[in-house]
């Protein structure tokens, strides 16, 4: 572990004189980000290219752009993997589609019909081009436009996930802080045991438990969670009460445990101990020493769990028969409706990658130490 505090702060990477920014560079850019010297490698011998010059003037912007580029590249690779993986794996869709009794002629016809007789690269490029413009082709099973279905369902899924996030994030951070404040005492132990149990519960179990008690026994919540166009906002909220509660319960324990660990990690570092030994008050230690260093890990925890939420939606939607993306994808997988599976897979992956990227960028903004990767 590196020395804590400011020891690895700005300037250290450049003290050796190898790649320090020239004074004129520093004067050119007057904004705040430029006060942190760049860690870009020395370009003294070769004349610097436009990217190098940009990176030296705007190190922070360059770092963020680099991270954005990485995400785009990752997304491209994922699209290749989702499409290529499906191609490379054994199993012929036409045969599955027609069943065991298919005649070779019928198989041939259906392959032509679905466009499977064209070369792989051509199909990939047209698929990718379509995906970029929001056209995911037509479903094999229902012959409907995939994009149209997704357009309706994506909003529903996001509404559910956003609602769950709005409740679980503040709650998790508050509980995590309580657990740290009372660490190794009774409240912490109770939170620890309950959250350990909660992360062991499968989503569907929590969901059916809630349905049985609140939906059936007490009759105060609705099941299944049907939503339709033109539904009023309050009706919609009451319809998704149980799915939201399920998602919150599932994600809360994870987020709380990770928050606790992140804050505890900061609180047990030597500079906090030094602050304690100096005799600073608890509030001052938290506000001035611990909080700035805890922001990055906590935000990271939140973003990671939001990414988890996007995926957790899949099971919860199936449990509650909620018309969202997750249910659409699971249904498509059972009938091997590949255009739908690929489209949903790509969209879920895109959300996941985007949230992870957001976590990284916020961490870089919050913690200057991360701007000097070693």
């Amino acid at each position, binding site marked *: 572990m590196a020395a804590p505090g400011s020891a690895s702060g700005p300037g250290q990477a450049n003290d050796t004189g190898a790649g320090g920014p020239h004074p004129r560079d520093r004067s050119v850019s007057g904004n705040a980000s430029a006060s942190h010297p760049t860690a870009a490698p020395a370009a003294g011998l070769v004349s610097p290219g436009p990217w190098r010059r940009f990176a030296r003037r705007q190190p922070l912007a360059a770092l963020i752009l680099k991270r954005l580029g990485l995400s785009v590249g*990752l997304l491209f*690779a*994922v699209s290749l*993997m*989702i499409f290529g*993986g*499906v191609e490379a*794996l*054994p*199993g012929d869709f036409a045969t599955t589609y027609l069943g065991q009794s298919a005649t070779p002629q019928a198989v041939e016809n259906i392959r032509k019909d679905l466009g499977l007789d064209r070369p792989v690269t051509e199909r990939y490029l047209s698929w990718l081009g379509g995906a970029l413009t929001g056209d995911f082709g037509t479903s094999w099973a229902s012959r409907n436009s995939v994009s149209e279905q997704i357009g309706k369902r994506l909003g529903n899924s996001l509404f559910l996930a956003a609602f769950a996030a709005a409740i679980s994030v503040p709650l998790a951070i508050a509980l995590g802080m309580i657990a740290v404040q009372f*660490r*190794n005492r009774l409240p912490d132990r109770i939170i620890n*045991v309950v959250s*350990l*149990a909660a*992360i*062991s*519960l*499968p*989503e*569907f*179990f929590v969901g*059916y*438990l809630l*349905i*049985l008690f609140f*939906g*059936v*026994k007490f009759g105060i919540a609705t*099941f299944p969670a049907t939503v339709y166009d033109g539904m009023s906002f309050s009706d919609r909220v009451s319809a998704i009460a149980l799915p939201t509660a399920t998602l919150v319960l599932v994600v809360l324990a994870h987020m709380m445990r990770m928050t606790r*660990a992140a804050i*505890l*990690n900061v609180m*047990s570092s030597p500079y906090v*101990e030094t602050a*304690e030994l100096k005799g600073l008050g608890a509030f001052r230690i938290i506000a001035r020493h611990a909080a700035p260093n805890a922001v990055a890990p906590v935000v990271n925890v939140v973003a990671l769990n939001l*990414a*988890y939420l*996007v*995926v957790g939606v*899949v*099971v919860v939607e*199936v*449990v509650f028969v909620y018309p969202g993306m997750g249910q659409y*994808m*699971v249904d*498509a*997988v*059972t009938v*091997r409706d*590949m255009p739908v*599976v*690929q489209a*949903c*897979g790509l969209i*879920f*992956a895109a959300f*996941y*990658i985007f949230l*992870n990227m957001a976590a990284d960028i916020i961490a870089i903004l919050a913690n200057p130490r991360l701007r000097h990767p070693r």
Partner: protein
Amino acid sequence: MPFKTQPRKTFSLNAIPLSAMIGLAGIAIALICALFAPWLAPHGETEVVGPIWLPMSSEYLLGTDNLGRDLLSRLIFGARTTIFVALAATVISFSLGMLLSFTAAVTGGFVDQGLSRLNDLMMAIPTLIFALVVLAVLPQNIWILIIVMAILDSTRVFRIGRAVALDVAVMEFVEAARLRGEGSVWIIFREILPNTLSPLLAEFGLRFAFSILFLSTLSFLGLGIQPPAADWGGMVKDNKDGIIFGISAALIPGTAIATLAICVNLVVDWLMKRTSSLKGGRGDV
């Protein structure tokens, strides 16, 4: 507030805390059910014994399911399937992940870069979504399921294995072994593996608990183990329609999944605390 380091614990039965004891007992019961299922179960796995969704009674201790099969018997047989598949997937994912991660850490250079980037790519797709895409293509077969679960899980093992191995690989005794002229295989198995065993053991437990939940989720979605074989996730799926009539048959296998996962987590928690206190850490992170 002062942070005390915990005293070093020695391995004896008394040192095992109550929570870990409960966890170990739960795992033992599940294993016994799995191993001796045909002798323990009062009825057959797929035998229809009476009307559907009978409540609990002295004859059918947990009632019957959606087809009139004895729920307790199916639960016991389900333990066998669920634990076998989850354990097989974990063992394979661990062997694969450790082998690749240690190779990457010891070899370094191009191999390390290639494997790490591939791993990053695999981890960029959420596990469940990846599994759904892959299982949509592959034929439904228990071994294919195990392999898919194992490969997806091995990305996590790879990441932690590489981190741990890199920590150890720079220590003096590894350097000494290298200078003695030992090969990579010797260094991996005789120098690095014994020194990384305890964190990896905790990780194994964690991955096993995750495998149980993951398998149950897949089966619940209808993509895991196929009927009529009993498995806990599939049993929840079979009986879920009873919930709206207030019949709790679906919750019984759900409870079994949750209990086993909690038991494994309790043991893991203890192992982790033990590891961190052995390493002289603060023991609470």
